[in-house]
Structures are given as C-alpha cells and as structure tokens.
C-alpha cells in the first residue's frame, strides 16, 4: 500500500511547486498613478493625516495642473526602513513630510533626495520662517540643503506643582543642585508602611537607543549649551557636559529618586512622581484628557549644571519635508511645499496636531495668539522652540545613541562605571563605529 499515493517523484515536485506558487500571496500592490499626479506620504498619526487631507484638497482645487495624491507611509518596521527600501527600489513618492533629520544622511548617501537649495527661491522662503543661523543647522554634510524644517517638538520637563508646593518648594528645579534637593524632599514613604511610594521622577529605563534621545540628549544639550555629539565625523561628547549628565543620573538612581517599579502605568498622572523630564507638546493633549482633577502641573525647561547659565537648550524632535529624486515634477512638489508651509497652513497645523511649526515669531504673531490663549500649556514649548537642536548630520546616529545607551545603563542605572569612564567608553565605541566607513 503506497503511503504517498501514486505520483511519481516528478509529479510530487510539480505538486509542491504549484502548492508554493498558489500559497504565496503577492502582497506588494504597486500604486498606480496617473503620470501628472504627485504622490505625498504623510505620517500615520491621525491628526496629521487629517491635516494632509484638508490641505491637499485645497491645493487640488487651486492647482488642477498639478494634482496630488496623499497617503500615509506604508507600514513597516519603522518609517526609515520603509523609506530606505523605497529609495533602493526607486518606488519613493514625490515628497514626504515625516522625515526625522537623524535619518536624513542615510537617504542622501543613497542618492534618494533632491537638493532643495537649487530652487532659486529656497533661501527667501526659508528666511520668512526662521533666522539664517537656525537654518544652517539643517545643512547636510556636503554643505547643501535637502530638507525643509517643518515642525518641532521641544523636549521639556513636566512637574507637579502641588507636590512641589507641599514639599516647600515654590519653583521648578533649574539646576542639578535644586533637582537633587527636590529629590531628597519628595522621595518618601507616604503611607508609612516602610516602603518608598513617592519618587522624584520617572524616565524610561529600557537601554534602547531612542529612549536616550529624550533624557540624556536634552540634558546634554542643556549642559553643553547646545554642543553637538559628533562633529566632522568624530565624536566630540567626551567632555565635561556629558560627564555631568551621567553623574547626575547616577546620583538620582543611587539615591533612589527615580522610580524603578513598573506597577504604575503612568506614575506622573497618578502623582507617584513629581517630575517627568522627557515630554513634548504632543503629550499635552493626552495628559489633559486623562488627568485626574486634582493634578496641577506645569512645564519647565530642562535643568542645567549649577554653573551653566540659561536659557536651557533642548532637543527639538523635528519632522521635516523632502522631495525624492524619483520625482518627475520636483518643481510642482516644491510649489506644494511652499503652499504647505504658508502661514495660514502653519496655523492649521498648530490647531489640528498641536505640534509647533518652525516659524518665528510664533507667540508674538496675532494670527497664532488665539490658539495659545486656548492652549496656555503649549506656550512654554513655543517659547522653547527656538532654543532647540536637532540631531547631528551623521548616518551612524542610531549606533552612536546605542553606544551611549549601553554606557548610560552601566553607569547611571547600575553604578558599574564612573561617569568619566562611561562617557569615555561611549566615545571610543562611537569612534570605532565611525571608522567603519
């Protein structure tokens, strides 16, 4: 009795091949687009998609000669992976507005982007929104511009006003000494059961590279008054500022001022901690929605070492606009960008997404005044917006932050290394990474 039926070997071979081809669904659906249409990819954030829908509809009404189709960035591991893959397969759209500057150099290396300073009115358009020295920070390694700085999310510190007042402190900590002093007063056993149940602050403890963009990096920028991590393809953070930041966090952990327990879903909302130092304007709406009635909080700049003068500089999580080199109508794409970043549309962006357009002046302009009257919590962010830095123009940025994250864990969280040693080792690893070009 044959177990495998009557088929011959070849028959089986064919059967399996057929089974495979039938079973394998083809998943890539090529977006068919008419020749004169431009494609625009937005972020997948619902508010931003709504913003895109609105302005694209308006554009298409006014410009039937250059119609635009918009869609969110296709799903993938991360939008960088998706964009890199699209660049490699030359399936990029005409433009995209969800570009994190930290990944930009990789796209340039891949020759995926259009040089924007070739447009004759590039600088005049930019000057209407920001001063030259700010624009200069978005210049790429080759000295040219490939991105339109669009919106920013300055990272700032939230603090619980009531908890501070009850601890006898009337202003948010501005220096490390004040921060540590607040820790001593605020970290305590509230219900007297012998275990600490109130802490000074919460940060994300995972040793993952991008988490350090929201704690180490803003503190480093504040401490160094905006120095880069990498300059001329060499790490330049083996300095006092980085050591001070590592030392501060090591001290905060050593004294137990940072909550380690994972039992509270958001300890700041539950008033178990008094400080959350890694917050951008995007989270204000969520906090406002979820916050229990008695929570009184305010926004303050990132603290600095005692001898560093203000104002605090912080990390501004930028999202910028680019045109891809696959575009057959880069001029039309540029016209659309000009439309997209007009003052009127910047107001829409602000109102719909609560993210700050990179436009000066923001607070003084009467057009935006109404919005900030309704959303006073965003005023500190708007004030901070021009004291921000993005990320350094280096393709290996992720790996450098990973090296910092590793040492941050070893030094600050676990106390295994001195701050000097940890910073030095992170810089050495970064040099190694940058040497492999």
């Amino acid at each position, binding site marked *: 009795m044959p177990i495998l039926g009557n088929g011959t*070997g070849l028959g089986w*071979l064919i059967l399996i091949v057929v089974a495979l081809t039938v079973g394998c669904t083809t998943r890539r659906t090529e977006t068919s687009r008419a020749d004169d249409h431009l494609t625009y990819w937005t972020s997948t954030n619902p508010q931003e998609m709504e913003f895109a829908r609105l302005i694209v509809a308006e554009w298409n009404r006014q410009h039937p000669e250059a119609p635009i189709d918009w869609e969110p960035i296709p799903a993938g*591991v991360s939008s960088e992976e998706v964009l*890199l*893959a699209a*660049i*490699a397969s030359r399936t990029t759209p005409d433009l995209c507005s969800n570009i994190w500057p930290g990944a930009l150099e*990789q796209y340039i*290396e*891949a020759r995926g982007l259009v040089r924007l300073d070739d447009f004759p009115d590039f600088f005049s358009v930019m000057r209407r929104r920001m001063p030259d020295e700010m624009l200069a920070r978005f210049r790429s390694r080759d000295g040219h511009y490939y991105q339109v700085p669009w919106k920013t999310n300055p990272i700032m510190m939230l603090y619980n006003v009531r908890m501070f007042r009850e601890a006898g402190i009337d202003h948010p900590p501005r220096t490390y000494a004040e921060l540590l002093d607040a820790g001593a007063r605020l970290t305590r056993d509230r219900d007297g059961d012998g275990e600490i149940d109130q802490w000074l602050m919460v940060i994300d403890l*995972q*040793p993952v*590279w991008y988490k350090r963009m929201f704690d180490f990096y803003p503190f480093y920028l504040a401490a160094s008054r905006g120095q880069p991590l990498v300059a001329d393809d060499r790490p330049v953070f083996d300095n006092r500022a980085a050591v001070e930041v590592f030392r501060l966090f090591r001290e905060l952990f050593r004294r137990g001022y940072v909550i380690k327990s994972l*039992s509270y879903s958001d300890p700041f909302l539950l008033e178990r901690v008094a400080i959350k130092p890694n917050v951008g304007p995007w989270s204000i709406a969520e906090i406002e929605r979820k916050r229990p009635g008695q929570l009184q909080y305010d926004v303050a700049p990132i603290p600095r070492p005692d001898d560093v003068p203000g104002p605090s500089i912080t990390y501004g999580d930028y999202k910028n606009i680019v045109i891809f080199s696959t575009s057959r109508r880069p001029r039309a794409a540029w016209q659309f960008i000009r439309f997209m970043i007009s003052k009127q549309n910047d107001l829409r962006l602000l109102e719909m997404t609560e993210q700050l357009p990179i436009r000066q002046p923001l607070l003084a302009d009467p057009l935006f005044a109404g919005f900030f009257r309704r959303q006073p919590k965003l005023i500190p962010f708007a004030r901070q917006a021009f004291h921000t830095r993005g990320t350094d123009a280096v393709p290996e940025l*992720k*790996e450098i932050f*990973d090296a910092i994250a*590793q040492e941050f*864990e*070893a030094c600050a*969280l*676990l106390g*295994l290394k001195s701050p000097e040693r940890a910073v030095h*080792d992170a810089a050495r*690893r970064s040099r*190694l990474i940058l*040497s*492999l*070009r």
Partner: protein
Amino acid sequence: MNRSRRNQRKVRRKLESIGYLMSLPYILHFLAFGAYPLAFAFILVFHKWNIYLPMKWVGWGNIRFLIHDPLVWKALWNTFYFVLIHIPAQLVVALALAELLNRPVRGRTLFRAIYFMPVVISGVVITILWQQLYAQDTGLLNRALTAVGLPRIPWLTDYRLAMPSIAVMATWKNVGFYVVLFLVGLQSIPRSLYEAAALDGASEWKQFWHITLPMLNPTILLVLILSTIGGFSLFIEPYIMTGGGPANSTLSGVLYLYKQAFFFNRMGYAATIGFFWAMMIFVVVLLQRKVVERDVG
C-alpha cells in the same frame, strides 16, 4: 552476447540518468541555499552593506571592528559562563535521572515521557513560562522564598545572576533529551562487566565510577558537544527574557548578530560575527574532542 552487453550498458545509462535526476533537486537546492550563502559569507566579511544600497568594500574593516568590539568579547564570555554552568548541571542531573530510570522501576516510560516533555516544546513557550517563574515581585520562585522568610532574588534583573538563571532554565528544558541519550548509553554496557565487578566485591559507587562512567565516555562527549553548540546558538531565551541585558550580561553571539543586522542594518559586520562564531564553535568542539579522547586513551 554483444547485443546483451549493449543492452546492459543501456540499462546502466538509464539508471545513471535517473540517479542524477533524483539527486538534481538536492543539488540545485544546495547550490542556491547552501553553497551560495557560504561563498557570499566570505564576500560579506569584507563589505559594508545595509542591504538597500550597493555594497561597499571595506577590506579588513569589519574584522578590525570585531577585534576591537568589546561586545563581541562580552558575548563570548557570556557564552562560556552559560556553558560553564549549563554543562555540569546537565551532566549531573541527566546522568542521575538516567541511572535511576535504568533500574527496574514501574512507570519508567511515563517518567521518561515527563522528563522529555520540555524538549519537544518550543523555547518560546518555555521562556515565557520561566519569565513568570523568575519575576521579581510576582514570580513563583520569589513567592516561595518569601513564604519561608527568605529575601527575594533578582533572578533576571541582576547582571551577575541573569545568565546563571538562563542556564538553569536551559538545563530544565534540555535535560530530558540527555536522559534519553544516557539511557541508551547505559543499556549498551554489558551486564557481565558489573557481575564481574560485584564478584570482586566492588561497591555500587565504585562500579559506577570505574565501569559506568568510562563506558559512557562517548555519550558524555556527545552531551558536551551538543550542549556547547546549544550554548553558542543561544537566542530565544535572551531575546524574550532580557533583550541581552542587564548591562549586556545575557548578550549572546546570535542575539548580537541579530541586533547588528536588524537594528543597524550592518549585514557585513553581522556576517563577520557569524563567521567568527562558527569558528569558535569549531575550535571548542575540536578541543573537547581532543580532551575527552585523551582521557579515554
């Protein structure tokens, strides 16, 4: 006569061609998914490649990076640490259980089946289960400790304990397999050896030491080699339980390779780590073979 010879040759030709035809799928598959990746591994070692853009020749760059990369050596040390705990534990427990099962006991198949169960179950399941057993506040192990008045142990959150904890879990998962191997080994030892020893008045312990152990030498070598290869292939456990932490204390070679390839898109460097890792496995297995065979001789 002449005709039949020609006929024979024709038959042989036909059989030969069928032989080729039957082997053809394997040959093609080997060329595509065996030989090509193997050759390409050598090429990748000398290139930087993020898979999206053209490859870039970097010469000895990856190898220099590897030599100077403390994380590679950390992963290597972690692997030795794992193996150092895992192998002795494995040998002792497996040998003890096999020795007990090799006696005339009721329900032997049932016991064997129970000990073997973790072997067939996915490492993902075992790891998720043990993660709960090891959990700091809610884990069963710490609950048991606090119930008898002992302090909690930070099984997975202390950088000194995390790897030993993983090694204990791996032992629990694999030991049933080695029980079976030892059982096979034990059953192949001729009874007459024990009878002769018993006549000479050798105690049971002495018999075990002088007959059982030496006779099991090939099995022990096998267990050593398989456990070492297992140690060098460690991935699921740190991937799910610790992500390689705390402070890279559970970073394994394969996990590091995975991170280089998929977090940082460094295909060339990841391939270099794979290459280095394969070499380490070769060296260690050869050393073990040498040592154990010399002991036998």
